[in-house]
């Protein structure tokens, strides 16, 4: 019975909101807010129709691929540089002000520049995503590396855990909660940048498609695009949370234990 109540509480508001949207817009004559029923109606045709030539394949997949590529590069760069900088106080002092300036640049601001340098193809979009995503990862990695517990570090030294083994077994693991925080921030930023780069200058992609719909006043289709973007954000977020829980299970447990002391 409790489970049912819980289940109900989780679903109640979303269902109510959807119902309100459906019925309130049902008789809508407004150009910009078509009935939800119409939006749902055009959904399949807009995205799925055409099999291999469907927008799902020609636009969504390339967008995702660019996001994945840019994100992966940003993670590798961010963690790699973060490990180096975090382990050396001198290097950190040297680079910190310059890094802070770069970090403060709102990533969308460099889009026009990168368009001029790299065209409107995949390279530009990947670069935009890399530029935006690398900073949260890098800075959080530096913070995590610095915060390795000195007692743990001494213990590792005593038992002869040095060099690459030390980085792998001690530093990376110890800094992982912080690194994951950075990666989470980077992911939501990456999604935004992916869309922006496509809205600003592109020939295909999710952002491009949605803007095209808007420009050609295909309003219900535009709304489906908005919904797809929303779903994308949610799915990636849920997926990330899932992976995070697997990797950081120990951290949650430890924090719980400390809270109850």
């Amino acid at each position: 019975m409790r489970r049912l109540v819980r289940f109900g509480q989780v679903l109640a508001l979303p269902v109510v909101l959807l119902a309100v949207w459906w019925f309130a817009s049902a008789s809508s004559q407004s150009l910009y807010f078509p009935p939800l029923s119409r939006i749902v109606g055009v959904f399949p045709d807009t995205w799925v129709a055409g099999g291999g030539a469907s927008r799902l394949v020609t636009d969504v997949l390339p967008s995702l691929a660019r996001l994945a590529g840019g994100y992966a590069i940003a993670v590798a760069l961010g963690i790699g540089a973060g490990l180096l900088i975090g382990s050396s106080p001198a290097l950190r002092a040297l680079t910190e002000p310059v890094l802070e300036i770069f970090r403060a640049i709102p990533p969308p601001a460099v889009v026009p520049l990168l368009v001029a340098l790299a065209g409107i193809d995949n390279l530009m979009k990947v670069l935009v995503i890399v530029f935006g995503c690398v900073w949260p990862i890098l800075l959080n990695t530096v913070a995590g590396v610095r915060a390795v517990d000195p007692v743990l570090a001494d213990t590792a030294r005593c038992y002869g855990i040095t060099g690459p083994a030390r980085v792998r077994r001690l530093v990376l693991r110890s800094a992982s909660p912080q690194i994951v925080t950075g990666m989470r921030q980077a992911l939501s930023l990456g999604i935004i940048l992916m869309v922006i780069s496509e809205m600003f200058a592109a020939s295909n992609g999710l952002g491009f498609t949605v803007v095209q719909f808007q420009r050609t006043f295909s309003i219900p289709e535009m709304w489906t695009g908005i919904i797809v973007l929303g779903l994308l954000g949610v799915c990636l977020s849920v997926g990330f949370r899932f992976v995070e829980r697997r990797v950081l299970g120990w951290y949650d447990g430890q924090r719980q234990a400390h809270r109850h002391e």
Partner: protein
Amino acid sequence: MLDVRGLRKVYAAKDRTVEALRDLTFRVDPGELVCVVGPSGCGKTTLLKCLAGLLDPTDGTVLVEGRPVTGPPPGMAVVFQEYGRSLFPWMSVAQNVELPLRQKKLPKARRARLVADALAAVGLADAPSAYPWQLSGGMQQRVAIARAVAYEPHVMLMDEPFAAVDAQTRADLEDLIRSIWARTGVTTLFVTHDIDEAIYLGQRVVVLSASPTVVQEDLTIDLPRRRDQLETRALPRFTELRTHVYAEIRRAQGREPAAPELPGVVPTGSEG
């Protein structure tokens, strides 16, 4: 096994220098269990870190198995006071105990054997897959001890390992150390601020003076080899030794002129 000669350690603090250790000289022979005791702030932890190769001495030498210490020597295991922070929280108990063995590149079967034996020896045979933060303080320290035991060290250093543990658990852990030492015969140096503990555990007790620190006294404990928490601590000899060491420490802190002479025993070694 352990040879400390003229050890001196000076720290440079913000605007002054702190002489944590002035001149320490003592030795620990193979297979001995020696306790180090001293007033608070006398640099016991600094001494241990110099022995463990975590700190470089300003002057003097530290020899472990005849070789000077320039970094953490192989064959040495250290048990720290902060057990919670010395165990890897992302690894299970068994993985924690196994980690140094993997570093030593031992084959898998041998590692499994050593881990199982060590956990059994400390009484944690049924908790290999638990995580450290799921265990109580005493159990976590047992894991740290098991890790040291599984390493099969030649020398074991312990830095006030039971200071942060409650009294009853401390008694159990003290007996655990005695039994491990009796079984394996590993050379053990045990640093503590608890005088009773030092006398209960040690074959010898090295008493440190207050800062600037030198060896105040090097005392042989002539209690029976088999120690028991109730019986041994009730012995009159225990009380004599205890009083003597306590008085020595008070003297080191400058609160008393001279310790009463110990009846019947000539203390071995002394300062200088």
